[in-house]
């Protein structure tokens, strides 16, 4: 992952830089998660030095930022393939990358060393905004907007320049416009907490349950063509079906966040049925990936080749994405999306369980797959196969995240039944539920599974650094042997 040697386009070289930062931030996310998980069991750990609120803030911010990095990287990587051109403003793009990375570094250092400020506007501007996921201070918000404008300029004008506008790029350009624009909804201050959360969900929900999902659909479409040589007509038809179903359910599915924040009761119905349909496109995506895989494999075997897959680690992560998205976002989301259930599950570990599996299954998996595609390109590898490390990474990370999810689900059930259904919430009810053995055991298993995930991450980072060299060496040796 350290060299760009075989990449012809500057845009793709820039993509590799985005991937490199993303993987570092992914590591930071896991370390912060580990601290927070330890604090659930040993609350004295780093107390008043590095409190849960700080660890948790950096944990979720690193998550969002590494994903945005990997997403921007993925787009820069696919632009030349889809348009046949270098990104139009690549010099500006490179500058934006360094500005963004410098800004992220400053923001993280401030989070870690300054942590909180006084109750004033200047804290909101320079330290943190104190709104979950959107903690980035206002100055950084403005910086992000500027960087995203540069990025979007590159995507849009390179798209305009392309002779043949592909369906994948059309969806990408339209979707990124919405994705970027939505960020603006999270950039103002109001004294009205209900108003605050109303718009806050516009960013969070319309990202992760609408535009990010469509983004994943376009990445999967691109990757299937790249890895399997899938037929563009079929892939793009599926993509439009996915857009139809994802936006059809996801946009008004926003209502499931408006059950209890002061908004009118009519959101119960809107949120319930539209969001109940959100798993449907995820099933479709899963079917689609397996359909294309099976079909191309059949063609390959009929033609005498052993496999259709040109990059097996990327394919493994993309297949994990297809299923993980359905399981984490679809099933775990559906569990608690109806208001009749949500009145008890809202604000419990149930949400945490869903959050972990959904972010991992829907986004982390495919973005890791894109990184493997990048490595393949950078080393000019014709057919990339998994190493022992790739397999360990795949297995340990999936097993670890599933384990954390199951543990948090059990903790959530206990919390829902004892704290909410039985005791009705409140200070005492909260702590009674937190101290019951079943809850504590579940938190212990979450920590164990978190460590498993972290070990898997070490394998992943190590593999991304070395697999290119290893496989390309083998490939050139076998070419030499046959010659």
């Amino acid at each position, binding site marked *: 992952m350290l060299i760009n040697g075989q990449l012809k386009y500057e845009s793709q070289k820039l993509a590799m830089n985005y991937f490199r930062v993303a993987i570092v931030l992914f590591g930071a996310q896991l370390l912060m998660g580990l601290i927070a998980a330890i604090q659930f069991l040993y609350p004295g750990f780093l107390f008043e030095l590095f409190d849960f609120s700080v660890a948790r803030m950096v944990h979720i911010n690193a998550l969002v930022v590494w994903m945005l990095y990997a997403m921007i990287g993925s787009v820069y990587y696919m632009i030349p393939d889809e348009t046949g051109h270098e990104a139009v403003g690549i010099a500006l793009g490179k500058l934006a990358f360094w500005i963004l990375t410098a800004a992220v570094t400053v923001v993280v250092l401030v989070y870690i060393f300054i942590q909180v400020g006084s109750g004033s506007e200047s804290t909101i501007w320079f330290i943190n905004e104190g709104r979950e996921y959107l903690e980035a201070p206002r100055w950084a918000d403005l910086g992000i907007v500027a960087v995203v404008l540069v990025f979007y300029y590159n995507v849009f004008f390179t798209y305009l320049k392309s002779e043949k506008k592909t369906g994948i790029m059309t969806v990408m350009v339209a979707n990124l416009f919405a994705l970027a624009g939505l960020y603006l909804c999270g950039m103002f201050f109001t004294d009205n907490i209900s108003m605050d959360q109303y718009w806050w969900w516009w960013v969070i929900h319309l990202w992760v349950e609408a535009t990010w999902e469509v983004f994943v659909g376009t990445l999967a479409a691109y990757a299937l063509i790249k890895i399997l040589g899938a037929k563009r007509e079929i892939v793009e038809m599926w993509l439009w079906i996915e857009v139809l179903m994802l936006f*059809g359910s996801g946009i*008004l599915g926003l209502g499931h966040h408006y059950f209890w924040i002061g908004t*009118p*009761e*009519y959101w119960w*119905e*809107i949120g*319930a*049925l*539209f969001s109940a349909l959100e798993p449907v496109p995820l099933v479709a995506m899963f079917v689609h990936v397996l359909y294309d895989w099976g079909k191309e494999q059949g063609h390959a075997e009929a033609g005498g080749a052993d496999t259709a897959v040109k990059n097996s680690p990327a394919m493994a992560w993309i297949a994990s994405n297809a299923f993980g998205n359905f399981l984490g976002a679809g099933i775990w989301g559906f569990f608690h999306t109806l208001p009749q259930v949500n009145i008890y599950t809202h604000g419990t570990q149930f949400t945490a369980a869903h959050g972990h599996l959904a972010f991992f299954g829907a986004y982390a998996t495919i973005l890791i797959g894109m990184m493997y595609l990048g490595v393949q390109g950078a080393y000019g590898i014709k057919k990339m196969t998994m190493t022992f490390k790739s397999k360990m990474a795949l297995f340990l990370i999936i097993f670890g995240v599933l384990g954390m999810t199951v543990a948090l689900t059990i903790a959530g059930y206990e919390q829902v039944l004892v704290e909410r259904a039985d005791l009705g919430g409140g200070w005492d009810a909260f702590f009674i539920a937190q101290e019951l053995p079943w809850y504590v055991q579940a938190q212990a298993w979450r920590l164990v599974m978190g460590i498993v995930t972290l070990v898997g991450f070490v394998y992943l980072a190590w593999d991304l650094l070395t697999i290119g060299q290893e496989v390309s060496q083998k490939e050139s040796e076998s070419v030499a042997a046959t010659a």
Partner: protein
Amino acid sequence: MWEACTDVACGNLFAWLNQGPLTLTIFLHTVVVIPMFFIYFQEKKRLEEGGE
């Protein structure tokens, strides 16, 4: 039969459509889905008449 005030709002279109289980959401789903029949038949006609 029809409740003019649901929750704390009166004379509000969406609250008025919200008359119990699923009335509002089924209405909205219908609004979304019905025109797709029109799109379907229009596309069918176009394809049969030899569009690409």
